[in-house]
């Protein structure tokens, strides 16, 4: 009866900011990012990416409570950059990486399709994501996943 609605864990309520930035008064060049309606999926990849950055001194996250749907990500950098800037770099790098995964997977699907035989494909259901057939009429429709060839510039998310 008092249980929160399940969709509250991923829908951002009206008037709530996706990211809240809190300065740390005890550490120099340190910001805590409170990211609303995200969980380990996003926080863990960001933490990992940030730790790989040479200018990052500290990066860690926690989920304060399982029924409060936000994560706290704390980042400290050297004075040569700012936590917000390295955060932007990390986000960009990750977007590129998932784009690369998608085009690599698409290329593999083409290879598997060309080899035919046991790794055969299913006839129906490829439409929405672009058929495996090169030159298919549905190629490039809205919702096309892109990544048809060995290129990485095809991330076409429409917002």
């Amino acid at each position: 009866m008092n249980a929160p609605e399940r969709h509250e864990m991923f829908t951002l309520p009206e008037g709530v900011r996706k990211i809240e930035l809190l300065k740390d008064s005890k550490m120099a060049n340190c910001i805590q990012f409170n990211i609303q309606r995200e969980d380990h999926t996003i926080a863990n990849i960001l933490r990992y990416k940030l730790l790989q950055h040479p200018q990052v001194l500290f990066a860690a996250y926690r989920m304060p409570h399982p029924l409060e749907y936000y994560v706290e990500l704390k980042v400290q950098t050297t004075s040569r950059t700012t936590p917000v800037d390295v955060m932007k770099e990390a986000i960009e790098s990750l977007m590129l990486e998932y784009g690369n995964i998608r085009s690599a997977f698409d290329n593999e699907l083409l290879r598997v399709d060309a080899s035919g035989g046991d790794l055969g494909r299913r006839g129906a259901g490829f439409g929405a994501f672009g058929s495996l057939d090169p030159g298919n009429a549905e190629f490039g429709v809205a919702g096309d996943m892109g990544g048809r060839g060995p290129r990485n510039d095809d991330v076409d998310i429409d917002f």
Partner: protein
Amino acid sequence: MNGAGVGDSNQPQIRIRSLDKNSVDFVLSNTQLSVANSLRRTMIAEVPTMAIDLVQFMENTSVLADEFLAHRLGLVPLVSHNVDQFKYTRDCTCAEYCKDCSVEFTLHVKCTEPGTRAVYSSELISSNKDVVPVSDDESRGIILLKLRKGQEINLHCVAKKGVAKEHAKWSPCAAVGFEYDPHNNLRHLAYWYEKSIKEEWPLSKNAEEEKEADPDAPFDFKAEPTTFYFNVETVGSLDPQQVVLTATRVLQEKLVALQLALEEDQNPGAGTNMDDAEPWV
């Protein structure tokens, strides 16, 4: 890339080992554990599909209670290749549900013969020819309930778009196999054993892909996993390759939302314009 350092040269590689109607087995390499795990989590919980969400009973004289049947109907996988064409009901302009955010089903069966009459998921009549219960060509789908003579079931269902974070019925995956470091060279696992680890913990088939570390060599405590073995098994609502591709897109959409929020934070008002957003490729 504008900065040096944040894993610039990351060019993940994929090798598909097998692909069929309901599963894809692939190896993801040259990436990190967190990225592989985010992909796994997203495939399980955040790839949207269609599932029955509301059930209205007009008649139910079967032996099963209404809520029991409603729960069963929710779990029936629906072909969701066109899920992108639907809105989430909460984002839709309609009052309750409409054809832009839902698909309606009806089921009306009465047993008039002596003996048992099984009711199959393929007997659900859909309002949309693209969203129907999953069934092989030769099968009639899943048995929903059984009726005896004189019993009747008459109901109306509404299927909506959703993700498995809300309810597991929306998950496109039956199971996602995920393994790395099959020889346990990194010692992320501490196996319990009686006499011999090797005899009591047989290696998986993924062990053929990697070499076992020399037991006499000093332990490399900085080593990290880079190769991940996935086996994505679906329930039939989406093709397995579609699940993988959609998961990468969902993750990118999440990252774009974060990027826009950061832009908005720095110069309020400007970030809402897509032209101001930084390109990411």
